[in-house]
């Protein structure tokens, strides 16, 4: 009987899909609310699951405000602790049936902590991230890379100078990659308002770049 690689692959992929289904049925993924309640009820593994689920995105948000990676890590950890404390307070005040919008609280806390950190340290003028050359798309030449890095530095500075709401929406959308609905619920506004703030932010940043282009042309 000849070896049929295509049929073999198909069987293999069907098996893998079936295995995934079995795993999903065996251990359905708990949502944030359930994990948070489980932790507050004493299940410590739920804490780890919840932290692992959000840590990269929270870190991505706070590192825009904290130039030092250790500071950003510390802010990330504090965001989680405060979110858990807030959840516990809410449950004890409003009863165990009260809903816990953990993600919304977590990101709101992260943005506030980041902003306070930047204000306290007066680091608005420092470039938050050193590895500027890593941020852009692949460059065709060293000159292109330099131009991109300069422009990127300018725009990132401008992000920190955006009006508060625009800055918060922009960072949650771009850094944490939240949907506008999630951004809205984190910042206590509608999805549409979040979109509007984002659009104003992009327009403002675009203006900063255009002004820079005009100045360069003049000189």
């Amino acid at each position, binding site marked *: 009987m000849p070896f049929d690689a295509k049929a073999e692959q198909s069987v293999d992929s069907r098996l893998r899909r079936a295995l995934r289904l079995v795993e999903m049925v065996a251990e359905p993924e708990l949502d944030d609310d359930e994990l948070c309640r489980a932790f507050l009820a004493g299940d410590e593994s739920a804490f780890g699951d919840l932290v692992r689920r959000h840590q990269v995105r929270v870190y991505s948000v706070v590192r825009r405000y904290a130039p030092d990676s250790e500071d950003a890590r510390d802010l990330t950890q504090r965001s989680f602790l405060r979110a858990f404390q807030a959840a516990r307070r809410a449950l004890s005040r409003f009863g165990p049936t009260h809903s816990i919008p953990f993600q919304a609280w977590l990101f709101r806390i992260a943005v506030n902590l980041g902003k306070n950190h930047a204000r306290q340290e007066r680091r608005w003028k420092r470039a938050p991230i050193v590895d500027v050359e890593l*941020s852009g*798309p692949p460059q065709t030449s060293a000159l292109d890379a330099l131009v991109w890095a300069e422009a990127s530095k300018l725009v990132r500075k401008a992000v920190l100078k955006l009006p508060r709401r625009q800055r918060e929406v922009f960072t949650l959308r771009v*850094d944490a990659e939240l949907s506008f609905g999630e951004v809205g619920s984190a910042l206590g506004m509608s999805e549409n308002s979040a979109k509007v703030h984002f659009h104003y932010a992009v327009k403002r940043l675009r203006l900063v770049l255009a002004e820079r282009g005009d100045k360069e042309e003049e000189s």
Partner: protein
Amino acid sequence: MSACSDFERLLLERASDTLTPEQSARLEKHLAICAGCAAEARALVETVALAKLPPLTPKERISLQGMPLSALAAWHRAERRNRLFRRAGLGIAAAAAVALVSVLPTLKRNVPTKNSAVQVEDPTLAALESWGAEDPIADSLADSILGGDVLDE
């Protein structure tokens, strides 16, 4: 060349990656024939890309792997600290209550009551009234008459 005002919102939504497939198809059709909008679309997408932070470094990723454990340890430390503060607060409150209970009878004894205030004030008022009623000239005259040693008429 500037972008068409009708497509401004769609261009921004394209930059934020929130276009529906229908909107996207409509916009792309327009971009193919409008150089102004095409330039603006490129500029908006580039602006958002320029604002993005670089991806996490391997060092940052490794550092984050330990976050669940370190955060849990920090949670327990904070809990222990809070328990300690609560106990200390309770201790201070209990000590204050004991002190209050022991001092209260003394305070109660020293605090003037309404009646005792009247008692204190009564003699004073009486003295004042009697002083007001006194006639020093008449008194001195009476003294001299009775004594008879000053005025000798």
